[in-house]
């Protein structure tokens, strides 16, 4: 009874205006901080911090709120990955990546006369959603408030509505044709949601309330799982209740790497933590701080290292429960030196990039690069393929006043996922991240229960045991490029976080034969890259969400927390006023 009274009081406080938060594109505070791609979601987290919740509490509130205010990028039908560092020194990586349903096989798809690539926008493209399982694990690890309190902001936003922003409107517009066919009820009486209109989702409010009342397990083993099963059977999807019942979010310690004296805590495979560290390991050998952010040589070196990292990703990143790959060797500093040797400071790599695939396996026993190279490397063969190109997905960063930090990325893969609308949310289309057809030896062949590979990379950076930066971004194949751009901007070029976000970005990605850059680099830099170093340039208008939408928090030595939301997606930071 006491517990119920407490919950009612907390929820009442949440909505009586007694809680004050500051929300803006960039915010400074010493009371905790949330940075997310959407002001409503950031504010939801800050309210929880204001109420005395910790970073994990706030993360759960933000995750749920994002599912409401950005239904096209995440939600109950999605999945993701979180890295958490607690002030007591404990560190967690929660893998709530989706998994292929057991019925999903190349043969089953072929029997329907289809290919994997053609089921992307159908219920068949859905993998087992993991967001709620991730929330449950996070809650068990260290939340202090009941789920009913943490879900209250999301329910309120869904029930009472919120003002549609430009990203929401544009995304709906870009996907309108698909939504008109598969999710008419989501649309504004059949039309695109326009900027400034009020979006309400009472059906989702009911679903969230139901999860709160029945418990998260209702989604995996209870009545909601039964309804998902029935829906998928009726609509031809592969997902079944048995898949939901067997699904678990996995808690590990995050992977650890270093860059110029900073400690980085990153995700395990099947996402891109090792790739991110490998690229930084290569770059650590260059004195980038002797150059500037717009120095063509710096851009060239970073871009070439990114290309190598992306080539290797295809060989070394997959679900570790299914493929025993030497990803720890891949992220070793000794292996990085062999990759460094391939980069010509005066000339871009020849095509195809796939031919630069490295062999990290000899480094698994701790050998040095001299030892390995003197014994001669044997190349590892791997087939290269492009991943999804959508700038979808969403990331948020949180730190509380005690110094607990959460870096959380969640997604439904493409914007609006499969486009399949169920009880107010969209199902993911992660199936597209498996190989499009079976290829002998490929580490991402579609396999029941396996988690597909993607490039998300939520990260916590520490210095001398204290949280320094919490960062992450959406952006599909550009995620690692954005992450490396950010870390180099912060560490090597000593930029404040808002400038690190604001500066024009570029991509190093093995599927792009050109160098894709945002406007804003000096013409002399562009000329040098093109005429001297041999890059084929592809310039995008500034700012462009194509490059990602990072949301970062910096914690200064004096304890001041600075949050910055993504300018490429209308992001915000929000802090409690106390």
């Amino acid at each position: 009874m006491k517990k119920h009274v407490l919950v009612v009081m907390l929820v009442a406080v949440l909505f009586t205006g007694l809680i004050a938060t500051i929300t803006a594109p960039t915010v400074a505070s010493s009371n905790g901080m949330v940075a997310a791609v959407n002001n409503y979601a950031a504010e939801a987290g800050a309210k929880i911090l204001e109420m005395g919740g910790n970073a994990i509490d706030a993360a759960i509130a933000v995750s749920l709120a994002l599912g409401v205010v950005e239904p096209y990028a995440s939600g109950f039908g999605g999945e993701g990955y979180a890295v958490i560092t607690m002030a007591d020194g404990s560190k967690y990586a929660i893998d709530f990546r989706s998994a292929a349903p057991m019925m999903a096989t190349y043969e089953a798809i072929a029997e329907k006369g289809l290919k994997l690539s053609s089921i992307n926008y159908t219920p068949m493209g859905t993998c087992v959603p993991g967001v709620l399982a991730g929330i449950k694990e996070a809650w068990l690890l260290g939340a202090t408030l009941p789920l009913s309190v943490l879900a209250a902001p999301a329910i309120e936003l869904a029930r009472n509505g919120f003002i549609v922003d430009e990203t929401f409107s544009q995304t709906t517009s870009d996907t309108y044709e698909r939504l008109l066919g598969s999710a008419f009820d989501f649309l504004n009486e059949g039309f695109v949601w326009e900027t400034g209109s009020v979006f309400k989702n009472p059906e989702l409010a009911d679903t969230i309330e139901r999860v709160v009342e029945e418990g998260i397990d209702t989604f995996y083993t209870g009545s909601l799982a039964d309804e998902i099963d029935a829906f998928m059977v009726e609509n031809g999807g592969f997902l079944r209740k048995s898949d939901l019942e067997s699904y678990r979010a996995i808690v590990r310690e995050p992977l650890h790497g270093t860059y110029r004296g900073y400690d980085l805590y990153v995700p395990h495979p099947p996402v891109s933590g090792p790739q991110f560290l490998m690229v930084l390991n290569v770059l650590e050998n260059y004195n980038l701080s002797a150059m500037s952010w717009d120095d063509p040589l710096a851009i060239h070196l970073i871009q070439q290292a990114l290309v190598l990292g992306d080539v290797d990703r295809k060989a070394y990143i997959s679900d570790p429960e299914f493929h025993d790959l030497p990803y720890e060797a891949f992220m070793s500093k000794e292996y990085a030196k062999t990759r460094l040797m391939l980069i010509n400071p005066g000339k871009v790599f020849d095509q195809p990039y796939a031919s630069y695939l490295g062999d990290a396996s000899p480094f698994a026993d701790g050998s040095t690069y001299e030892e390995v190279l003197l014994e001669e490397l044997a190349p590892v063969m791997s087939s290269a393929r492009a991943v999804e190109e959508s700038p979808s997905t969403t990331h948020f960063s949180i730190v509380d006043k005690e110094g607990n930090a959460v870096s959380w990325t969640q997604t439904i893969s493409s914007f609006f996922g499969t486009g399949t609308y169920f009880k107010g949310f969209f199902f993911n289309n992660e199936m597209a991240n498996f190989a499009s057809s079976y290829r002998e030896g490929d580490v991402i062949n579609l396999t029941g229960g396996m988690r597909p590979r993607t490039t998300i990379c939520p990260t916590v950076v520490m210095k001398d045991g204290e949280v320094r930066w919490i960062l992450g971004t959406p952006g599909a194949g550009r995620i690692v490029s954005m992450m490396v751009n950010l870390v180099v901007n912060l560490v090597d070029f000593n930029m404040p976080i808002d400038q690190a976000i604001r500066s024009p970005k570029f991509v190093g990605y093995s599927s792009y034969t050109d160098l894709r850059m945002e406007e804003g680099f000096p013409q002399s830099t562009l000329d040098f890259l093109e005429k001297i170093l041999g890059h084929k340039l592809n310039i995008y208008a500034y700012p462009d969400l194509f490059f990602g939408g990072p949301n970062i928090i910096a914690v200064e030595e004096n304890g001041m927390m600075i949050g910055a939301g993504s300018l490429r997606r209308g992001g915000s930071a929000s802090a409690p006023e106390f």
Partner: protein
Amino acid sequence: MKKLLLTFFVVLCFAFVSFAAEILLEEPVIVTSAGQSPGALQFTVVAKMVSLDYKFDKLYKAEDVDMSQFKTFVIVVGASGKGLGAAGIDIEVEINRVLALAREAKDNGLKIVICNLEGASRRGESSDKIVTTLAPLASVYFVKSDANEDGFFTNLSEEAGVPMATFEMTVGLKDVLAQYFGK
């Protein structure tokens, strides 16, 4: 003062009705996109609401269409880089495609509607270029109000003596269609 305002609005309403009455559109209707934004598809949602007899394809080509089967040609303008990219065409190819259709329609005696359904979000260099290219062939403009805040469509309308109807919300096009098609 109130009386004066009331009089002004009454006069305005009459003016609108009489202006609309200058042209009556007939079915069947052929609809295409000019710029590959989702506006044309949204037009079909409104068309269904008023039970308009229409055929739609966002990529009709003049050589594939028998314009003599139709009475009205609706061109929904909205340049979208993503839409054009998905269709594998550039803006010049798109303008030429629609211009050819419009000329074919004119030759067959169809009335031509140039419609901006998505408002200010479909005003820009490419969208405006489409509109100005097609303007000499226009019979009437249907325009979402916020696309005309700078008077762009008003100027085209007045210069060519072509009527224009505006609407505030997307769904407001329903009333315009009902009025012009006598529904």
